């Protein structure tokens, strides 16, 4: 009986992921308790532009090469020179979600005890888009800053 329920709930989750993957992620899904995707897709976005939260962004970046859990935490800290640190509960939550969404897969680890993860093709596409989007945001910021300070100089 318990295995039956276990299976049923997994299938339900899969269906939800399937919906999200196919671009139907709406705020409504999240509000109703279907939160797959909610943790790593920015909650304020209503459309299916799959924006990553900062934590998910850094985790996915670190999985461009295969890494295990500890490796992810260490790499993110090194990459950002200690500016960003990821807590283990946040990391675990996001690994599970991204795995369910097909952004990352469990690698064939040499070491059986240590699970390694790698970004999938889909994950790579997402992260590439995200790097570009964030880069454009920086450009916008700089442009706005520049025009504002130039405006002051003219007066």
């Amino acid at each position, binding site marked *: 009986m318990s295995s039956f329920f276990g299976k049923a709930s997994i299938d339900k989750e899969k269906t939800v992921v399937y919906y999200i993957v196919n671009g139907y992620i709406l705020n409504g899904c999240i509000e109703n*308790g279907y*939160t797959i995707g*909610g*943790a*790593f897709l920015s*909650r304020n976005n209503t459309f299916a532009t799959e924006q990553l*939260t*900062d*934590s998910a962004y850094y985790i996915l970046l670190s999985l461009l090469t295969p890494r295990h*859990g*500890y490796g992810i*935490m260490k790499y993110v800290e090194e990459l950002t020179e200690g500016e960003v*640190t*990821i*807590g*283990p*509960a*946040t*990391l*675990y*939550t*996001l690994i599970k979600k991204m795995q369910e969404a097909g952004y990352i897969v469990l690698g064939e680890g040499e070491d059986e*005890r*240590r*699970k390694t993860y790698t970004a999938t093709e889909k994950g790579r596409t997402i992260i590439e888009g995200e790097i570009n989007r964030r880069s454009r945001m920086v450009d916008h910021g700089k442009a706005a800053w520049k025009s504002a300070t130039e405006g002051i100089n003219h007066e």
Partner: protein
Amino acid sequence: MNRTGKTRYMSSMGLAFAEEKEMKKLGEMAEQGWLLESFAFLGYRLRKGEAQKLQYSLDVHELKPSEQNEYFELFEAGGWSHVCTQGKLHIFSAPPGTVPIYSDKNTMYEKYNRVIGVWRMLAAVFVIFSIVFHLIYRQIVEAQGITLLSNVFLVLATLCFALAVPSLMTFTAFLVRRRRFR
């Protein structure tokens, strides 16, 4: 609080209502040499040990047996020692200054979201059943007066109501908690 030699019991108000307060209290107890050992009925069991500065954190994750190793290893790698587990509740401890187990709001929101569904359903079931049983009770009383059957429904309605109140309170507490991380 009872003391029995080397162990001691600390009561819990319920994690929905006082999670932070109780985690802080556990830290204070550790400073006095009373270290958390396990969950106990409506509380915690502490054991006498070396006094130390520790912070405690609670996580909620339903783990399949195959996921347990990975989960606990992640915490270990993050500097958090696993203390005890009951169902999907896990408590970890770490020296002060360790990176918190949750480092962003979105995943903290998720943490409470994982428990809120169960309480929403429980509260709804008890509320609905207490109303339904009460209506049945009134129907019977109107039709036949007070009988054994009407009393059975009255008891059932009262029982459901008595359970609906704490479930509603817990559900609301989690709702408020989750709201902080929106």
